[in-house]
């Protein structure tokens, strides 16, 4: 919380004169661009301008009222008012999540054989050495390792972001579902025919498309849930 006395030189207009309500609101509007869409920005600045003009007429300095940290004021107004850039954030988190997840998925491919082979050996020593079971355990292990890796990536990526917890809660359902779809697509492609460039492309798409869908759904749904429960898109 800043105090009214915190007015500093950064808030004075060139020449040292106090800035008008219009100048202060223009500054706030510039900062708002990072956080809010055009319609919300207009609503906030119109509202703020009326307030600051009235305060100015009553002898208060508009810049002092906003405080020294205009960016923080803009960010908090947007967050508390529940008008953060949801769509932009969904795209950003989905893109980053998918990008970061791909190495995690590759790692899953590399790690799974080591993790699964003891299970298969145990199954073999118990007399369960059916090829179908062997393949099922391998694919399930692969799907599970990849899903857990993607969720771990999301935990890191969402740290400190708005609605992190609701997003992860939804991702806990959508990411394993995407892994199941990816496994189904890959096993089908391998069962159907020979490995060609086309079949490999389908296999890759079978992983990437469900993954992106799962992340986008988790983020947008998580943001919506956060907005519905608390309204504020503060880190949760």
């Amino acid at each position, binding site marked *: *919380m800043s105090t009214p006395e915190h007015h500093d030189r950064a808030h004075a207009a060139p020449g040292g004169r106090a800035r008008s309500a219009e100048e202060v609101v223009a500054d706030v509007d510039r900062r708002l661009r990072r956080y809010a869409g055009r319609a919300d920005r207009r609503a906030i600045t119109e509202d703020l301008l*009326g307030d600051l003009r009235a305060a100015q007429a009553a002898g208060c300095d508009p810049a002092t009222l906003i*405080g020294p940290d205009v960016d923080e004021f803009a960010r908090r107004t947007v967050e508390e008012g529940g008008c953060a850039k949801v769509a932009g954030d969904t795209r950003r988190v989905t893109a980053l999540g998918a990008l970061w997840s791909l190495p995690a998925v590759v790692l899953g491919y590399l790690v799974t054989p080591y993790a699964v082979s003891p299970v298969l050996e145990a199954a073999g020593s118990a007399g369960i050495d059916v090829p179908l079971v062997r393949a099922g355990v391998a694919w399930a292990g692969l799907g599970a390792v990849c899903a857990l890796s993607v969720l771990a990536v999301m935990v890191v990526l969402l740290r400190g972001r708005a609605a992190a917890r609701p997003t992860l809660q939804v991702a806990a359902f959508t990411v394993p579902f995407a892994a199941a779809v990816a496994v189904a697509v890959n096993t089908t492609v391998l069962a159907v025919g020979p490995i060609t460039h086309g079949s490999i492309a389908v296999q890759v798409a079978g992983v990437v498309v469900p993954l992106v869908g799962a992340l986008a759904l988790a983020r947008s749904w998580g943001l919506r849930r956060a907005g519905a429960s608390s309204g504020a898109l503060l880190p949760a």
Partner: protein
Amino acid sequence: MAPDDRSDRRTQLLRGALDTCLLALLARTPTHAYDLVVQLERHGLPGVSYGTVYPLMARLRRQGLVGERIEPSDSGPPRKVFDLTLEGRSALSAWSAQWAETTTTITQLLATAGALPEPEVTTRVDA
């Protein structure tokens, strides 16, 4: 404790109670955002700026606890005046009770642990 530490601590304590204070002030007199800052100062909370109150009012409006109307002003352009909605009155009642219960519990804990004088002693000294 350094003055900055005291201020930070006070800010943290206020953070959870400021919305209740704003609702309480608006329940008594509908008014505009800057006047709320002045009233908070009059009630012994001088460190709360307009830059803190305005975003908080945005939340209370979004939650439907506070309504607004435009009123003419003697000293300048028309001002946006906030008042409490029915939901706001209900929230104020619940939040005030919760605040009283919480502070009573903490005060009792501190007194029992010897960090504060016993409430009875305080009453006798005041009397």
